[in-house]
């Protein structure tokens, strides 16, 4: 069986100036929105429900079902908030999508807003990506000018405003309730649920929060139909998605394919692991998903199969690491990230990541003990499922899975009083580490391993 690529979201990325409204229109842009405006809003929700589209932001919650949780209209405002705060290490799908095809997102926003009865949608963008922010702002301006947004959209009598908001750079604001607090101008920390955002979200009004890719998938579903969408992917993981390959791979980048494709197939398309090296471990969906190894090359990348194999599909951020990579070092850097980005609200994540970081650095520096490995696992156990939001759980995934597959490598760091790897060997560019392992003292600073 060979799965082929299915460019839908990325179909126009190769066109001239794909971000411009004219290019987008020349590729049937906003036709799905025109069609949606002729439909009953409830039918749009039903179509998305029937399509089996699941949230592309990581958790995989059925998108249509989420929309249907909104209470009956009471005359007050309802909001759509697009979560564009893409900050997970390894995840890099929404930013290229908005960079190359901002109007696809806007069309999705327009259709979704119309479907759920929202007249003011927000796009909460990660603040660091100023270039994407500018492109989105331009796209919104163009869409207003052409009547896709604003009062009486396309003469339908429907009003829609879109606000693009740039965050201030906090990983926690990708958590939907922290995002809402941040959007309201408060400190970005997750809210107590219930009430869920569908009942009391932005400004305590019914709110749908969806990932960029989920919303961008909506125009195709409306335009080409539910059956077309379901023809791709698997029974429970329908459709297509962006698979972001990065790391020790010959041609890194975005590979849009039906869900259920395997890494082996994707690696073939991407030219394989860099020459002369072999796969050591990889993440199926960003750093918060438990690691996979070469034995998982044939796991179908859909929600169920990846889950059954002990990880999560997450955001399909496939970070490929070859045998030159020190797994302790990689996990230690991820843990630095979680420690730095912990919002501080709950004890397990705030204190636990601080502890994990210190233990991992000690192990990497050869100052760890065998007892530390048990402590690592137990601290992870005390964070997983005990933290306020899922971000605390994510911090434990690389550590527990890393110890599961590579315990011997951790022990080698402890017994050998330091890291046996040369960091320069795993770099894809000339690199001199700031601190070199004692064992390599005196060796020449390596160049790119390839």
């Amino acid at each position: 069986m060979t799965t082929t690529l299915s460019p839908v979201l990325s179909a126009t990325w190769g066109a001239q100036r794909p971000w411009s409204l004219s290019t987008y229109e020349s590729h049937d842009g906003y036709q799905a929105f025109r069609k949606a405006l002729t439909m009953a809003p409830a039918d749009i929700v039903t179509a998305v429900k029937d399509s089996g589209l699941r949230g592309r932001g990581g958790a995989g919650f059925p998108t249509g079902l989420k929309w249907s949780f909104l209470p009956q209209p009471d005359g007050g405002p309802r909001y759509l908030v697009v979560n564009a705060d893409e900050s997970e290490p390894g995840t890099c799908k929404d930013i290229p999508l908005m960079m190359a095809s901002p109007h696809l997102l806007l069309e999705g926003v327009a259709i979704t807003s119309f479907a759920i009865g929202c007249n003011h949608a927000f796009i909460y963008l990660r603040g660091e990506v100023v270039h994407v922010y500018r492109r989105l702002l331009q796209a919104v301006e163009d869409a207003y000018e052409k009547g896709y947004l604003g009062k009486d959209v396309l003469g339908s009598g429907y009003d829609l405003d879109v606000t693009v908001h740039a965050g201030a750079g906090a990983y926690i604001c990708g958590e939907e309730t922290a995002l809402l607090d941040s959007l309201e101008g408060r400190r970005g920390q997750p809210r107590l649920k219930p009430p869920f955002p569908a009942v009391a979200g932005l400004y305590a009004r019914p709110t749908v929060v969806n990932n960029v890719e989920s919303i961008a998938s909506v125009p195709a579903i409306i335009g080409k139909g539910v059956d077309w969408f379901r023809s791709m992917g698997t029974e429970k993981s329908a459709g297509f998605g962006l698979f972001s390959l990065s790391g020790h791979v010959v041609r890194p980048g975005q590979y849009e394919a039906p869900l259920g494709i395997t890494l082996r197939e994707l690696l073939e398309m991407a030219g394989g692991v860099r020459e002369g090296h072999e796969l050591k471990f990889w993440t199926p969906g960003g750093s918060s998903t438990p690691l996979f190894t070469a034995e998982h090359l044939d796991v179908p990348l859909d929600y169920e199969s990846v889950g059954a194999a002990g990880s999560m599909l997450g955001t399909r951020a496939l970070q490929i690491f070859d045998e030159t990579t020190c797994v302790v070092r990689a996990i230690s850097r991820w843990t630095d990230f979680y420690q730095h980005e912990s919002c501080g609200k709950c004890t397990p994540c705030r204190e636990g990541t601080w502890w994990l970081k210190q233990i991992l650095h000690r192990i990497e520096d050869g100052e760890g003990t065998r007892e530390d490995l048990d402590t690592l696992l137990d601290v992870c156990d005390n964070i997983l499922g005990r933290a306020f939001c899922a971000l605390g759980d994510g911090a434990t995934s690389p550590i527990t899975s890393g110890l599961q597959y590579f315990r011997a490598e951790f022990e080698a760091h402890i017994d050998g009083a330091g890291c046996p790897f040369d960091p320069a060997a795993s770099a894809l560019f000339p690199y001199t580490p700031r601190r070199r392992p004692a064992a390599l003292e005196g060796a020449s600073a390596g160049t790119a391993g390839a």
Partner: protein
Amino acid sequence: MTTTTGKTSSEVARADLVTFTIDDVEVSVPKGTLVIRAAEEIGIQIPRFCDHPLLQPVGACRQCLVEVATPDREGNVRPMPKPQASCTLEASPGMVVRTQRTSAVADKAQHGVMELLLINHPLDCPTCDKGGECPLQNQAMSNGRATSRFHDTKRTFPKPVAISTEILLDRERCVLCQRCTRFSEEIAGDPFIDLQMRGIKQQVGVFDPGVLGFGGAEPVQVYRGAQPDGTPVDAAMGLPAQDPAGPAGQATVDTSGRPFASYFSGNTIQICPVGALTNAAYRFRSRPFDLVSTPGVSEHDSNGAALRVDHRRGVVLRRLALEDAAVNEEWISDKDRFAFTWQGMPDRLTVPHVRDTLPDGTRGELRPASWSEALDAAATGLAAARAAGGVGVLPGGRLTVEDAYAYAKFARVVLGTNDVDHRARTHSAEEEAFLAHHVAGTPMGVTFADLEKAPATLLVGFEPEDEGGIVFLRLRKAVQRHKARVFSVAPFAGRGLSRLDGTLVPAAPGTEAEVLDALAPGADGVLGQAAAALGPDAVVVVGERLAGVPGGLSAALRLAERTGARLVWIPRRAGERGGVEMGTLPGLLPGGRLVEDARARIDMGAVWGVDQLPSTPGRDASAIVAAAADGTLGGLVVGGVDPADLPDPALALRAFAQVGFLVSLEVRSSAVSELADVVLPVAPPVEKAGTFLNWEGRPRPFPQALTSTAMADHRVLAALADAMDVPLGTRTVAQVHREIDQLAAWDGARGAAPEVAYAEPPALGAGEAVLATWHLLLDAGRCQDGERFLAGTAQRPVARLSPAHAAELGVGTGDVVTVRTDRGQVSLPLVVTPMPDGVVWLPLHSTGSMVRSTLGADAGAVVRVEAARLAPATTDGKGL
């Protein structure tokens, strides 16, 4: 809310109950009850930090995790995948909860969280104020590991940050439960602290540019250490004079160097589950297990807040709030909490004093004397004074019910006079008629709970925060939780009213009565809104200041009659309501009996065992002072009265100096005792038992906290009466209570409602203005003496003028203005405030603004206002 075994609740009540099990014990609780509360009901203690019953759930600390299973649609009980925080989880029917007692998962989760909380905690319990009463310490013992596996580096912060002069924050002790920040935001509404930074660097703090790393910002100001013996601390301690980050406008001028200062900040210390927040005065002073705790009642205001008085070897070291759901819930004001040092100041009177008469017959010096000598001298002097025109009695407004009763009886039975008045403040005949008609002898009417439930409250002559203390917190709860509306008839919207989302009904001083009469449905603007909101469940609150407005209380009675709203009088002082009930007023005998009513006099005469009681109403406080000054009265008996609180302090001092014979009953040496012929020392509240009657009319009894030889006023008066050969029968509290109990409720005629006409508003000449003034909660009052840390949190005294008025004078916010009368002048920085033109506001009794003493004027008086010619004295002098 108990186990259902044998429960016989009605079916109706059952419908609102949720039945589920905790550790296999079936429990029924009202719908909406949190699991952690339900567990408490059956005696299961789940460890917690962030949870507090009076604050909204937050679920931050994760200490209270329990294992939960809930029935699905088919009724199969399915376990939830993760342990749940019991402080945020509402009980649902059929839920199966397993706490640390029956679930290994819950127990491990709790141990895990506790270990994580402790990795960055300094474990400096031996030197921490909280050690011995610390929820973290206690729960680490009960629900934590015996040893830590943490071998790495703890996060540290520089030692304490002074977040006000009163409160110090040790950030490394903090477990970030957010109780303090939630209290500030949800309860007090003055968020002077909040969370800053994130992750491991997350910390509680005031808005601090240093902490937040703003460019060029100075590092955070660090507290340099207090002297354990209480000697003066480096003046640089605490906060910079001006917050560089604070707004440059009104707020910085108005508050103590910070954009926010709180009257309720002390509560954050008490609810802190660790020793992160400590009090500057109490820090390092004692260990909880060395303290003896006695329940008490605050002597500072008429709320009767429940206190816990903690003392060690005869010295009070701190006061805490006690829980009393009906009155103060769990909150007290900083004045209630911190202002107790006045009772043990070096100027305490411990022995009686008698003034020698010099050989030439002139008055000599006061010298210590024995009780028998002092009592004899007082008896002789009072008997002579009684013969020489009579004796007036000024008991003051801070008495217990027992003491007030003794004064009322002493005046009538021993001195044979109705010249008794406890009102050391603005007062009027109209007010006494109002009290006789509406307050005296009435059962408990409007309560704290009624204030909370009232859909609308109208405040007249009552600044909710400064004059109400915890009344403000209850009003805010009404606004926050029950969407109540608050209206205030006042010259401007103060800080308190704005935090109540209140609506100002503007009124210049003296015009309140007209404004109240103008409240009519359909009237323009706020008048109409307020009138529409007032109905049978609404409450009209009148403060003691309304006594100074001719016709004000009459109009309030008319308003209540017209709208059906309930009318309540909330005075400031703790003894006001008790004095009204016990008859320390010239026209009132105990229980609302009128002096003029023969039947009432017979009633009282029977209890008091006398044939005759004086039958004509006596002089009020002002008339007593005037009669003493001009020699009409032969003598005075004065209790705890500060002459500066009387309407004319200069006249009062002259009267005390000139009156033929002056007996002073005082706790500390005072302006009165220094002029007295005989000084009889009396016990402060902490050294006596007694009962305050709060504004609700609720008795607030308290026991004696400290062992003491000092005697309460009622006992001193009994001894004095004995020396005058009249039995008073008030030697003990029990004796007084027996006598009060003999008094049946008065069923005779009540006083008639006052009908006083408005005064004409004064005509203002050029440069003149009408004075508005009232007490700030923290000011120069003698009961706040000796607590400099508390004084540091007081609002800075400022003058207020309307924008047009300020423009006319060519001054702006921050400029100094002078308010002048023929008697004197007060110069204060100006804050331009939206308020009626031609009105100037000054704090009544703050340092640099002693309105009555300096200006000889009160609210409603015409004063002259001008831009100051000279800069005022700097505020770093000894005066502050």
